[in-house]
């Protein structure tokens, strides 16, 4: 099968949607399918590139902000209209420009399908205040965007919440298909105690303390400050906190810990394309986000057998599973609660081990990329037949 994945920001870069797009493309290629990724030009990357057997095309854009989106939409649409005959299905990441590229690119096109156009699948990234629907509502021409989006064939939704928002936005006539994010179980596998020790020595992390990691962009949405507050309560036992990531809050976070004695218990590491060694070296993952689509780092940490402490969001409940064996839920914004959960895990190795094992099992059963890619393929097959 020939597929075109459209995404605005792609490699180099490591946002959630990019990571999922790359992972899916690689898995589909491995299964013998032809995959093309269509994305925006950037100065530090070539216009055409081969990556894990997938061809990446980058079409130009000028200016910044809305102008950049608009120009990229035009160039990418032009590219897609020229090449659309090759594809069975077009999949777009986010409700923003990639979706319009897909819609315009396949508009009344004579393709392989008898009805004359390639099916367009759109996968919104996130729900809630920071989500796709909220973003579309903030942008100009909301009514026109809403009308255009009705031409999508299928929305792939990560969660119930996104589905509800789409319906509320007046897109209830479009079919929704729930497919979760996937995770690479090979790259993210639990480390043995010896391996963990070796990793920590290599990465310069404390060897014999419980290591709690936060990985992700340091933005208000992820609420990394709550972790500092939790550490400031002094109620996290002897746990060491590791931030992996960059973002607008980084400086203020570092300033906040600089004078305090906490500096010896908190480490910052720059954002890195390969977070696996850090996750595998850690014992816990804390994710105090106020909003999430479906956190990749959460799935990855669970795949590494970490105990996870996450905010009680519907999507996080879905990830840790109905019985909640695989993690700890804390109310958003509750610093003492977060501290108590981390303290409980710090002090009871048994709970740590059990939740970690349950997390790995949960990910294997539901979020393995093989399984997720299979779900996408059966959707594509159904759409293109």
């Amino acid at each position, binding site marked *: 099968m020939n597929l075109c994945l459209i995404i605005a920001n792609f490699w180099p870069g490591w946002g959630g949607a990019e990571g999922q797009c790359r992972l899916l493309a690689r898995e589909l290629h491995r299964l013998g399918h032809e995959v093309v990724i269509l994305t925006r030009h950037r100065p530090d990357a070539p216009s055409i590139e081969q990556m894990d057997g997938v061809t990446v095309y980058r079409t130009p854009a000028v200016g910044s902000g809305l102008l950049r989106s608009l120009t990229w939409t035009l160039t990418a649409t032009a590219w897609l209209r020229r090449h659309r005959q090759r594809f069975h299905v077009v999949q777009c990441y986010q409700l923003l420009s990639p979706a319009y590229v897909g819609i315009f690119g396949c508009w009344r096109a004579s393709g392989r399908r008898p009805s004359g156009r390639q099916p367009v699948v759109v996968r919104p990234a996130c729900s809630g205040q920071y989500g796709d629907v909220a973003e579309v509502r903030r942008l100009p021409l909301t009514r026109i965007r809403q009308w255009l989006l009705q031409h999508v064939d299928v929305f792939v939704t990560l969660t119930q919440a996104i589905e509800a928002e789409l319906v509320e936005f007046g897109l209830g006539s479009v079919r929704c298909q729930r497919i979760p994010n996937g995770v690479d179980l090979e790259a993210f596998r639990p480390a043995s105690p010896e391996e963990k020790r070796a990793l920590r020595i290599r990465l310069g992390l404390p060897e014999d303390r419980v290591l709690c990691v936060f990985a992700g962009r340091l933005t208000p949405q992820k609420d990394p400050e709550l972790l500092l507050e939790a550490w400031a309560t002094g*109620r996290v*036992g002897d746990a060491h906190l590791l931030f992996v990531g960059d973002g607008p809050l980084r400086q203020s976070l570092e300033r906040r810990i600089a004078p305090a004695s906490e500096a010896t218990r908190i480490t910052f590491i720059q954002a890195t394309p390969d977070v696996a060694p850090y996750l595998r070296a850690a014992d816990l993952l804390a994710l105090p986000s106020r909003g999430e689509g479906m956190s990749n780092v959460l799935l990855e940490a669970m795949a590494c057998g970490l105990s996870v402490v996450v905010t*009680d969001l519907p999507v996080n*409940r879905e990830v*840790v599973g*109905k*019985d*909640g*064996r695989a*993690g*700890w*839920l*804390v*109310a958003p914004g*509750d610093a*003492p*609660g*977060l501290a*108590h*959960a981390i*303290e*409980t895990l710090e*002090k*009871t*190795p*048994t*709970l740590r081990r*059990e*939740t970690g094992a349950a997390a790995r099992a949960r990910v294997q059963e539901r979020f393995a990329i093989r399984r997720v890619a299979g779900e996408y393929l059966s959707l594509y097959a159904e759409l293109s037949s």
Partner: protein
Amino acid sequence: MRVCLVIPRFFPAVGGAERQAQALARRLLARGHHVAVLTRQLGGLPRHEVLDGVPVVRAIRTIDLGPLFGLTYVLSVARFLLAHRGEWDVIHVSFVYLDAFAAVLTRRLHRMPVIVRPACAGYYGDLARLTRFRVWPLLPFLDSLTIRIVVRTIVRADAFIANSTELHKELIGGGFPPGRIVQIANGVDLDHFFPDPTARLPEARRSLGLPTGLLLAFAGRLDPQKGLHTLVEALRLLAAGCQGARLLIMGDGPQRAELEQAVRGAGVSDRVLFRGLVADVAPYLRACDIFVFPSVGEGMPNALLEAMASGLPCVASAVGGCMDVITDGQTGLLTPPGDAAALQSALQQLIQSPEMRKRLGAAAHDSVASRFGLERMVERYEALFRAAGTGFPLPGGLADVLDERP
């Protein structure tokens, strides 16, 4: 200190024992201890959760099918404690129930001190409930044997906490070793429950949706244990001399429909308000004039302590912890349980005498504030847990140091 509180049901279930456990956990956490609650997995609730700052592990999993229930319950608790060997300094078990049995049974293997806290004495008490427990539906003769084994085992726990004198006596009578029973009364949060005469003013009443005039209050689960039929009967007898007094019933339960019927039958439906479950009773208590508590069996009733802390004159049955809390005629009035005429005459006295209401209310508040503050309770638990941490059996003097018998 690392304290594991084991309780068969936890939030969102809201009985007295659950609320005490919640308050204890929060205060211990605030004092710098490490606390987690171990409880039963109930449908749809997450297994690991932080509720109101308290870490909750719902790891007790059961198969609800005849004898399998008890068996899986015990195995589940035992498995948890054995896996957690050495990870807690104290295991505190609420209720004399299967968790206590499992914890004490495996005491030698997990080697963590086990402290058992029964909730209540009397017919509705832990020991009596246990003897009514049916384990083997088809083999009744095995039941008494099983229960004997269960009780004999629990008796070997490291320490017991009695929250009332009646319970203390009952435990000793039941063969529990007196040297290992410590009396610690329940505590009430004095920052939350306090008197405020302005709360009875008409506009304050209106903001809560309450009528003007003399208002009696009851708060608790609506089940037979609370003796509400006696109260309805007393209201009927009171009809003439009640000066338009009304009764506010806060709470819900299996008996609600039946009580509503009884109220209609007694012809007092215009004088009884069913308010259902109230999330926070404190403002309602402050807005009422008299608290009435006709229970037939009680451990250490939180509802009564809260009403007294709110400065209400109280009429309660002379049962269980009510007798520890109220000195008849000084800090409240006690009447024999199930005696509607006595209840009626006590209520009548209070209704007719504002002076007496004021005197008993003030005395009730002072007495509760000095003896049943939450902080005081938590300090006692802390002392007991610390002693447990340094090694049981308790040094002889400890029980006396903590002993609260009047």
